[in-house]
């Protein structure tokens, strides 16, 4: 899986990052698909209850959070490209941009949670909110791990002795997974009727 540093158009097909990380991505996606399936099944069984609780959510914050996380995916993809082209300072800048977007996401998430709990919609208030806090909670943990992963990228990019392109791509692959899982979670919790 060596990355050819020639023009991307002429580059042979390559697996981005370690194939091992892709095993994780696919497996974890299956696990989340199972969570989502349970949620949708039980939601379909009692739609009014779920709708009523869902109305307590603010769609705008959800949309904003989604856009922010998509931006973080954009910046980490840019980082991979900069690093591939040897522009390590630009790549490092992109990592910090990614981390900033993620921090905004986390902050807004906690703000949302606090607001919901204060208005009496806690983890054990209704079935909808059990799923809500469970899914956003487990996603939050994935995002926190994402910070460690970004740290690994920074560590790699800092010193000329390291700078393993494969590792940078591996970490980026993890980050994008956290992003697309959120895309699904957002759609299912905030928008589905």
């Amino acid at each position: 899986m060596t990355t050819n540093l020639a023009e991307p158009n002429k580059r042979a097909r390559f697996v981005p990052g370690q194939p091992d990380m892709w095993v994780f991505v696919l497996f974890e996606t299956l696990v989340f698909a199972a969570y989502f399936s349970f949620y949708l099944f039980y939601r379909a069984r009692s739609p009014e209850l779920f709708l009523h609780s869902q109305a307590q959510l603010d769609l705008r914050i959800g949309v904003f959070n989604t856009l922010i996380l998509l931006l973080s995916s954009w910046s980490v993809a840019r980082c991979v490209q900069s690093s591939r082209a040897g522009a390590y300072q630009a790549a490092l800048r992109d990592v910090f941009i990614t981390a900033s977007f993620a921090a905004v996401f986390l902050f807004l998430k906690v703000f949302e949670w606090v607001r919901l709990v204060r208005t009496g919609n806690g983890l054990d208030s209704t079935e909808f909110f059990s799923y809500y806090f469970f899914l956003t909670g487990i996603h939050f943990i994935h995002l926190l791990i994402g910070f460690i992963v970004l740290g690994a990228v920074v560590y790699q990019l800092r010193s000329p002795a390291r700078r393993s392109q494969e590792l940078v791509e591996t970490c980026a692959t993890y980050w994008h997974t956290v992003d697309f899982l959120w895309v699904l979670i957002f759609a299912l919790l905030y928008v589905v009727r």
Partner: protein
Amino acid sequence: MTPTASPATPPPGPLHHRIAWHLRHNPKRELWLAWWTLVVFYNLFFPVFFLITRVQPPPQPAADLATQVQWFHDRHLGLLAGFAIIFLVAGMVPVNNALIAYSMRRMSVSPVFAYSYLIMYSLSAIPGLLLLCIALTVGALRPEREPRLIGWIYDFAFLSYTGTMGVFLIGSLVWMLAILLDKNRVFPKWFGYLNLCNGLTEVVVSPCWIFRRGVLAWNGQIAWWLDVVVFGIYTVVFIVLLRRMIQREDFGTGPLPDLAPEQKGKRSEIEAAA
């Protein structure tokens, strides 16, 4: 230069002769004994928990006292006999942990990983396994006990078994970190990430302290069923990978060599003898 252990060949003969030869001469006999202990333990654990005692799948947290008493009554003999077996073979668990810790010692990372894993998992067997067995045996011993006490035992057993995932979670993370940092290629990196998946499904079990019904209760589809499926896959995978590790073992300190094609042939011989 790290010395490589040459795979010796047992003389041809009947199975028990070859097994005896391996026990006396195979340099990896302790590793194989540990591995077979692991296999035997899990082959006992699943039938005992699922078929004999029938404590898995777990009963409902929301059941009323009469149902709980009935639950004990239905399983009276199974609980006593099944857990008697577990108490006899519980000593196999440290051997399992030792083999996994050995895999970390073979890695290029600090021995701290192996030792912390060993300590964590040895301690975690108490809430994670033994407390349930002891509590349910106590509950089954005197069926005429007051129902409220039986109810207490019921809650205590299942909460301690399912709810104390924290130690297992941290242990998984320790193994994951060791695998990802390892330069000796003892395990493939995807197994390191599988540890993360397993750990994350264990995190998901912790809400069972709050919920008495639904998917996140201790018998819920997410907190139990999905967790068991992932854990089952994970266990089968690590048993296979540990076997491969022992086959590849050269007792050196450098990268573990891959299984050579001729070793794969020998492997079936050793497997048959072991």
